């Protein structure tokens, strides 16, 4: 594609302008080339190549692993062991593509899961193709037949080791959140997309979710796994190749816990940003207008003959009213 565009540009710039016949001919050629390349681009998007098992593993790691385990253990969402036997493939595909639509449409199983997980919605993965989802489902192991009764006990036996952090970690996490200290791999600070209501933290972005009570909903395991491998496409892009270190994840988790503990007596501060933007914006606008109007005030604003024209028009409105 790039070559074609470059060719078109150079061909047109280099051709002599008086060469009329050549010009029309080359025009036709360019149009043909362009239509072919446009067709290639569109066609390439439409042809979907079936994803293989290796892709399935990579896709699962990129999209699902931060919330779901391949065993029966719960992380943020349920463990996925044996899910292929439990639900039909069509159900899984439509659930993965848009979970909230199924809940809103009143699918009984979907509503049950939604209620079970404290009405915590799952991310929609509408951008995955059916083949990709099938490839991911193929790597999920089935439920071991003998262990039917033993699973519940096994869960009780090995609880997840709680994360240990101190006050200092929470303070360091706050600095990371607001961006006052940079992430080691130079990712963007959290405050640009997320808001938390906490004293001393500016009102944060509105692009993504309010994280004030995130720790109450997701607990240590959920928060830290989402931070270390974001399942949300925009967040994944932002931290692509700039992932946080384990220490930073720990500090941020500690900070979110402090924020959540503080949240009952904390008023919502997210409207502060509106006041800052609108107030600052309109005051700034006035200052800015005064500056530019003063700076270019010497400009001639009327034509040379404006005075003569006005004199002639006095008492004669039909000319230019």
């Amino acid at each position, binding site marked *: *594609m*790039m070559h074609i*565009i470059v060719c*078109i*540009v150079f061909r*047109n*710039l280099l051709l002599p*302008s008086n060469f009329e016949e050549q*010009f029309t001919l080359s025009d036709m050629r*360019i149009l043909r080339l*362009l239509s072919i390349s*446009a067709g290639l*681009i*569109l066609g390439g*998007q*439409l042809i979907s190549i079936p994803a293989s098992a290796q892709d399935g593993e990579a896709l699962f790691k990129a999209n699902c692993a931060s919330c779901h385990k391949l065993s029966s253990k719960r992380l943020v969402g349920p463990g996925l062991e044996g899910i292929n036997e439990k639900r039909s493939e069509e159900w899984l595909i439509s659930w993965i593509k*848009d979970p909230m639509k199924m809940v809103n449409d009143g699918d009984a199983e979907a509503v049950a899961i939604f209620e079970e997980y404290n009405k915590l919605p799952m991310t929609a993965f509408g*951008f995955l193709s059916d083949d990709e989802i099938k490839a991911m489902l193929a790597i999920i192991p089935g439920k071991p037949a003998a262990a039917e009764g033993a699973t519940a006990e096994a869960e009780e036996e090995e609880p997840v080791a709680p994360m240990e952090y101190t006050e200092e970690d929470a303070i360091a996490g706050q600095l990371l959140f607001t*961006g*006052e*200290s*940079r992430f080691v791999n*130079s*990712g*963007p*600070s959290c*405050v*640009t*997309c997320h808001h938390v209501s906490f004293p001393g933290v*500016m009102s*944060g*972005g*509105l*692009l993504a979710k309010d994280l004030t009570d995130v720790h109450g909903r997701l607990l240590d395991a959920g928060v830290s796994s989402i931070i270390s491998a974001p399942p*949300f*496409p*925009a967040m*994944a*892009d*932002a931290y*692509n190749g700039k992932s946080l270190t384990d220490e930073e994840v720990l500090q941020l988790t500690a900070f979110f816990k402090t924020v959540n503990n503080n949240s009952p007596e904390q008023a919502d501060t997210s409207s502060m*940003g*509106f006041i*800052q*933007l609108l107030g*600052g*914006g309109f005051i*700034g*606008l006035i200052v*800015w*207008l005064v500056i*530019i*109007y003063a700076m*270019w005030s010497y*400009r001639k*604003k*009327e*034509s040379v003959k*404006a005075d003569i024209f006005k004199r002639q028009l006095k008492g004669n409105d039909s000319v*230019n009213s």
Partner: protein
Amino acid sequence: MTLLESNFLPLFKGTFLYTVLGLVAIAIIVTVILYFRAQRMKRIYGVMEEPKKEFAWTFWIMLIAAGLAVFLIKEGLEGGVGMLNTLFFAAFPYITVAIFILGSIYRYRNTGFKVSSLSTQFLEGKQLFWGSQPFHWGILFLFVGHLVAFLFPRSVIGWNGEPVRLLILEISSFVFALSALYGLIVLIYRRLGTRRISMVTNKMDMLVYVVLFTQITSGLGIALFARWGSTWFASTLTPYLRSIFAFNPDIAAVTAMPWFVQVHIISAFFIIAVIPFSRFMHFLVAPIDYIWRNYQVVVWNYNRKLIRKSTRHTFGRKIKNH
């Protein structure tokens, strides 16, 4: 069971169809009224020699059409209709750039001397000053800001690390956007309200105004309702734009954005497509060297005697040296 609740006509659910039907009905009524009015005028005054140029209608109709387009894009993208995301964010950029390149070459080669934005400063200067200054300074700063966030995303993220600096950047960008919007409104008012200017106006100018209005208002919406865009632009949209330039579009992040961000992106690419066919063409021939060039003395070397004696009169044209 009313028609609305039935599954018989799923399209009747929601306001969309009613919006379309209402607009069509209004358009038909307006056309009929205008037709009969024109007939009556013709009967009373006879055929007019010079068409009366009025662009207010064009402007409002285009604005409504743009609103409808935005509504459709929002509904389509949020509803996940077909491959709309791929179309708008992976294919549309290349289509627009191809149109831009081919169209510019075509316009340079065919009407090279008309490549400008057709200044109207001679016809009206006062309102132009009040509108053009804030508009152009605002939009220039915004353009440079977007360019910097595209070229040096790390520096922008670094600058925004300190909350005070982030606020300074955001508020000043907001001021530039407000200034551009204010200037644009003054300019629209000027062009629609001055009869002299309407003689050199065409329909593409109205399109330019509508597109710019969409672009600036959606940008203001982003600044307010998806705030601290200066950083997340650098961290999420810069990779997307770079993936487009690398001919390997990665649209996952853009797909997850709120609808007004998507509208902002689509209308930005639309601007690129209409550059060759509108007064946007002056981007390509901006007289940057005017900033540092010397004064020029302009002397018309008309031969007064020849002009006086000339017999080559053409209606509506000044006689020169021939």
